[in-house]
């Protein structure tokens, strides 16, 4: 269908709908605008209907011969049932008051008299808590020793690193970016390096078909436009191809370059701050197609292949959003979006992977909502320091660490790839969910960072609470079963 035909079809929409939408949001200088009501809230019913319902209920109860005592007991049991549902993540949607009580009795008395009980249980998401009882907490490495480790060094075997080279600008007294160098080392010894002149490489990813590198033009400012670029580097450091992206944006940031393992590559990027973009390239770096979707002001935190399409995590700090996923088809069209949250806690996704036909989301949950500064530790800080912070304010690690551990729960959600609905989960208290990867025996490994010690430093600009986490690794098979666990001996820092 031609573009003109699409325009014509849309242009023919009945004028009554055009007129309805014309006044939906009027500029304030014409007619005061109105904000839409939250669709979850039911519109207030007229007062006379509400009164009639209350009267009718009272009449029914009295007519049934119930005494005041029985009514009070009924209310008490119903309140207990509602609390039980909430505590256990059960949904009471569609259930009458008596059905809620009946299901509650069935579950607590382990009977099945109500035909709604099975339905309620089926809707609940079962999960497992992985206990770390008996594990000795506390690190042998002191906090000052952890902070002094500014360079973790190269890993054994083949490892890569991006190094920025600067040149002194004597006129302005600044250090200007000259180039970025991709280094390849074996056990720390340099094998080769590839230089990208006047370009800033922000990240890379190693695949069996080469190392994809991406970034943006060297200098960025509010008065000059910049461009994004991608390159494919061979195993010997040779640049196979390098491309500048030109999608019509003044600002474009590449978030991921994914190997489709069919000779093509997919670039996920953010255009002009508010567009989620997908571009597809062939094995010679020629762009095959491009698609963009306006999603609003979000950063792209992660992107992975999912079946024949992709899953992309978006995030923002204001308002705080750390568990928003978009499922894209092969052409970059948005098929579905998922957001994971609950009324009394926030879920932060840190990594995701497709495994065994399911989507695994690693992250952590924090009780309550972030404060206006999007701080996860808002709840802890309000308890620790109710008054003004001074240089005399100090909290001992013995008091602080259990509070921080209570604040975090690592969560691994295992979700249906089509609907995004969680099917099951694993959780570890006092921890944060980390990286996901598939190991050499085709098992999924989930790194969990368990908080072992913390320190409070209100006058440090970069963080207020920081500490050390010990890394535990849990292994899963394709049937979602936990098949192994180990304490790796690795530590990572924690800072909020």
């Amino acid at each position, binding site marked *: 269908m031609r573009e003109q035909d699409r325009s014509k079809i849309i242009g023919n*929409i009945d004028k009554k709908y055009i*007129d309805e939408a014309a006044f939906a949001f009027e500029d304030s200088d*014409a007619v005061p605008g109105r904000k839409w009501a939250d669709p979850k809230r039911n519109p207030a019913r007229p007062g006379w209907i509400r009164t009639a319902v209350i009267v009718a209920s009272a009449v029914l109860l009295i007519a049934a011969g119930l005494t005041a005592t029985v009514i009070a007991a009924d209310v008490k049991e119903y309140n207990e049932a509602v609390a039980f549902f909430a505590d256990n993540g059960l949904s009471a949607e569609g259930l009458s008051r008596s059905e809620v009580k009946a299901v509650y009795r069935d579950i607590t008395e382990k009977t099945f008299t109500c035909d709604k009980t099975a339905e309620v249980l089926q809707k609940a998401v079962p999960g497992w808590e992985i206990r770390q009882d008996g594990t000795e907490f506390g690190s042998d490495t002191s906090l000052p020793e952890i902070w002094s480790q500014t360079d973790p060094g190269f890993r054994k075997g083949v490892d890569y690193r991006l190094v920025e080279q600067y040149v002194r600008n004597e006129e302005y007294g600044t250090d200007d970016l000259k180039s970025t160098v991709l280094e390849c080392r074996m056990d720390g010894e340099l094998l080769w390096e590839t230089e990208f002149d006047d370009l800033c490489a922000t990240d890379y990813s190693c695949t069996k078909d080469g190392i994809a590198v991406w970034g943006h033009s060297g200098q960025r400012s509010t008065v000059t436009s910049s461009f994004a670029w991608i390159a494919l580097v061979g195993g010997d450091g040779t640049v196979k191809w390098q491309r500048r992206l030109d999608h019509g944006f003044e600002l474009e940031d590449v978030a991921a370059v994914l190997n489709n393992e069919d000779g093509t590559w997919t670039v996920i990027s953010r255009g002009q701050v508010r567009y989620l973009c997908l571009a597809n390239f062939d094995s010679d770096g020629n762009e095959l197609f491009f698609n963009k979707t306006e999603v609003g002001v979000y950063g792209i935190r992660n992107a992975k292949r999912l079946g024949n399409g992709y899953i992309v995590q978006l995030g923002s700090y204001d308002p705080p959003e750390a568990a928003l996923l978009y499922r894209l088809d092969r052409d970059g069209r948005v098929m579905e979006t998922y957001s994971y949250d609950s009324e009394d806690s926030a879920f932060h996704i840190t990594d995701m992977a497709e495994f065994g036909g399911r989507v695994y989301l690693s992250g952590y949950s924090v009780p309550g909502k972030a404060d206006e500064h999007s701080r996860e530790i808002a709840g802890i800080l309000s308890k620790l320091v109710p008054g003004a912070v001074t240089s005399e304010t100090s909290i001992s690690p013995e008091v602080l660490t259990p509070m921080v551990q209570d604040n975090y729960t690592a969560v691994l959600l295992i979700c249906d790839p089509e609907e995004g609905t969680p099917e099951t989960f694993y959780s570890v208290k006092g921890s944060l969910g980390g990286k996901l990867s598939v190991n050499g025996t085709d098992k999924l490994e989930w790194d969990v960072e368990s908080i072992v010690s913390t320190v409070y430093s209100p006058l440090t600009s970069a963080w207020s609470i920081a500490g050390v986490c010990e890394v535990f690794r849990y292994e899963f098979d394709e049937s979602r079963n936990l098949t192994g666990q180990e304490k790796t001996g690795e530590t990572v820092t924690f800072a909020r």
Partner: protein
Amino acid sequence: MDDSKIIDLLFERSEQAIAELTSRYGPACLRIAEGILNNRQDAEECVNDAYLAVWNTVPPQKPDHLPGYVFRIVRNLALKKYHENTALKRNSSYDVALDEITEFLPGSASVEDDVAVKEISEAIDDFLETLDEQSRILFVRRYWYADSVEELARLSGRSGHYVSVRLSRIRKALKKYLNGKGVFV
């Protein structure tokens, strides 16, 4: 000044009518044109042309809903300019909206004549009738008025994510509806 008085001024051939039109609907007209053309100068020119078209057509026309009438003229003129200017570096919210429209009006489908165009438009009208008011307004503002997702979020007081998801679901439902009606068979 309400719409009926502006129409009266047009019938009296008073230039005050254009001043009132500009004051009342100028920003909205500019937003529609800019959403399609992505260029302020072109959009202003288009809006001025639209005022002239209103002056030349009222009378004898007497629109029963003046803003809708004006917005339609602005949109048609903007689209004409959009299609004429093939060299235009496109990045307007209208481009993005057109891409989204392919989800329910796919490129592979063919439309042979104006009768077929009318049939599809009527099917879309029938679908819109089944939607709740908010969804219908979002759809029309996005694809007829070419409002950006960000603008819709700002105007409705909802998040960009909410608007984006809602529109995605409407497009999917419309595609299913049109397929069910055999529109593209």
